[in-house]
């Protein structure tokens, strides 16, 4: 298989890079000064693209790579892949569901606790040598708070199960009602926000869900409510979010994703009621290795004519 051209779009995991290097002719997109230079040599030899949450395969790239057969994403999100174009051209797509569900759900709860209990501030405060006897600051309790989950898929469900252990009543909004799970359903995001202390974004990013958390939703969540985003930056109208936070109309936010990563609105840097993470939802050694193994296994299966492990199935 060493002669099969596999294009890796950006550095994402040195373990993955090594594993791909061992098995295929790995071409690193970021080593080329310009796309045109890359295409000159490789236009007709790339049979697979490996992308991630920041760079995938858009329509242009898919059209350019004449021999492209499969796009294998080092992510569960597919928003950086032109799925319509892939479907049109018969190009297969795989992603990394399940292996990262726990880490992302764990981080969502970690973000809620860090935000509500001001854990980052506490750590900073002690390290500043300013702790004096008798100093204390009251923070917000988590147990028992109502949690509203936007998107009750694998990750949303895992978050719900964790929140239940903290005696949190869980509600959700999703494309379809899921009565078996026993949580309270709201038919609109605004109603979900109105009835939640904590709103967690956990749905896929599509044309329908871009800026799904808009000004109206933020106002519904309100000055005592907090927003947690472990989905994609564009789920949230970031400009509106900055205004809502700096004007005190929204109680707080804990964000792992942003519209233009790694750029984060600087107005948020000085806010104590904001926790900002550099897209680390699946960022553990164990999970990244498991994701990498899945990417490699899917590619091997494809080129050996075997069934894909985690194919994206086309909906109607």
């Amino acid at each position, binding site marked *: 298989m060493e002669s099969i051209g596999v294009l890796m779009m950006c550095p994402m995991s040195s373990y993955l890079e090594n594993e791909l290097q061992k098995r295929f002719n790995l071409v690193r997109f970021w080593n080329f000064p310009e796309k045109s230079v890359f295409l000159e040599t490789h236009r007709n030899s790339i049979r697979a693209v490996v992308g991630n949450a920041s760079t995938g395969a858009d329509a242009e790239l898919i059209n350019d790579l004449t021999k492209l057969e499969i796009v294998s994403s080092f992510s569960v999100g597919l928003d950086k892949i032109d799925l319509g174009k892939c479907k049109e051209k018969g190009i297969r797509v795989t992603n990394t569901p399940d292996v990262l569900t726990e880490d992302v759900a764990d981080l969502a709860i*970690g973000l809620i606790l860090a935000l509500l209990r001001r854990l980052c501030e506490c750590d900073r405060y*002690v390290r500043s040598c300013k702790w004096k006897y008798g100093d204390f600051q009251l923070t917000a*309790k988590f147990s028992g708070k109502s949690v509203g989950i936007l998107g009750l898929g694998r990750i949303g469900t895992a978050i719900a199960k964790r929140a239940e252990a*903290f005696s949190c009543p869980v509600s959700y909004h999703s494309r379809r009602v899921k009565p078996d799970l026993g949580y309270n359903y709201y038919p609109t995001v605004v109603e979900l926000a109105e009835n939640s202390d904590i709103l967690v974004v956990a749905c896929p990013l599509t044309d329908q869900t871009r800026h799904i958390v808009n000004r109206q939703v933020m106002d519904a969540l309100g000055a005592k409510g907090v927003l947690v985003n472990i989905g994609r930056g564009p789920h949230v109208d970031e400009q509106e979010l900055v205004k809502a936070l700096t004007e005190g109309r929204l109680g707080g936010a804990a964000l792992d994703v942003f519209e233009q990563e*790694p750029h984060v609105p600087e107005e948020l840097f000085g806010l104590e009621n904001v926790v900002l993470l550099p897209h680390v939802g699946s960022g*553990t050694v164990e999970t990244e290795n498991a994701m990498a193994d899945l990417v490699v296994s899917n590619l091997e299966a494809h080129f050996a004519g075997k069934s894909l492990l985690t194919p994206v199935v086309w909906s109607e």
Partner: protein
Amino acid sequence: MAESPLVLVQRPPTFDFMDELLSRNFPVLTTHHTSSAPLLVFLSRHASSVRAVVSIGRFKIDADFLSHLPSLRLIVCTSVGTDHVDLPECKRRGIAVTNAGEAYSEDVADYAVGLLISFLRRIPAADRYVKSGQWAKCGEFKLGIKLSGKRVGILGLGSIGSLIAKRLEPFGCIISYNSTCQKQSIPYLYYPDVVSLAANNDVIILCCALNDQTRHIVNREVMESLGRNGIIINVGRGGLIDEKEMVKCLVDGVIGGAGLDAFEKEPGVPVELFGLDNVVLSPHSAVATPGSLDNVVQLALANLKAFFSNQPLISPVRLN
């Protein structure tokens, strides 16, 4: 003063959240004194009629203090821990002691889980990384450690410990414990001592009471047993850990890291910890929510009312 004081409140100046409620219900005397001489003089002058002390802030209550309160029959602590109170001396003098019971349990359990996830996923450091502009400049942040599947040993499976266990179960943690009471009804694996608890777990969470048997219960031997990837989460008392040894173990990589809400000599914290990236530090804040404060205020008031009307106390502490 119109009436002789019945209740003495001993607290730091900033902890005034009970003042109004107490003075509405009882004739109250308040002191902020913490050092012996001025305090004892104050007590001699003003506190001969005091029958109950409300202790807010864990100031040391020793034989000297008690001997200056001839009418004292009740000490109401707003902490769960009573390691700052000479319990045998109270017993000798026929003084009952109440604590915060379960007023804080949920918040402390939440906090313990928060510290653990914050440690494993490097949340405070990652937040600093973004807010200092480094993400845009320097690229990807360091990877964290997966929580799911971790073996978590709870030292002290009381009210707080049980709630911690319940919270960690859906995270896929494997729970075990060491406690003064081993019950058949508890679904978790029991270890007979702290060394074996540490040896068989990736994380140990400390939430037992501090007393003569548990002082420095987490010592060098326990930390070596826990091992270089092992993590300590402390939401109990600083005195549960041999702090000097712990600092060495953290610096030398004998243990993997720690999330600490308590220290031996608060607000003093060993400076060596400030430069470490394998610790999450917190200024004894696990109980600091309005809900917990409200709970303990109501509980303290209920204990006082019960005492003054000869009813059974709500949250008495065993004195032997």
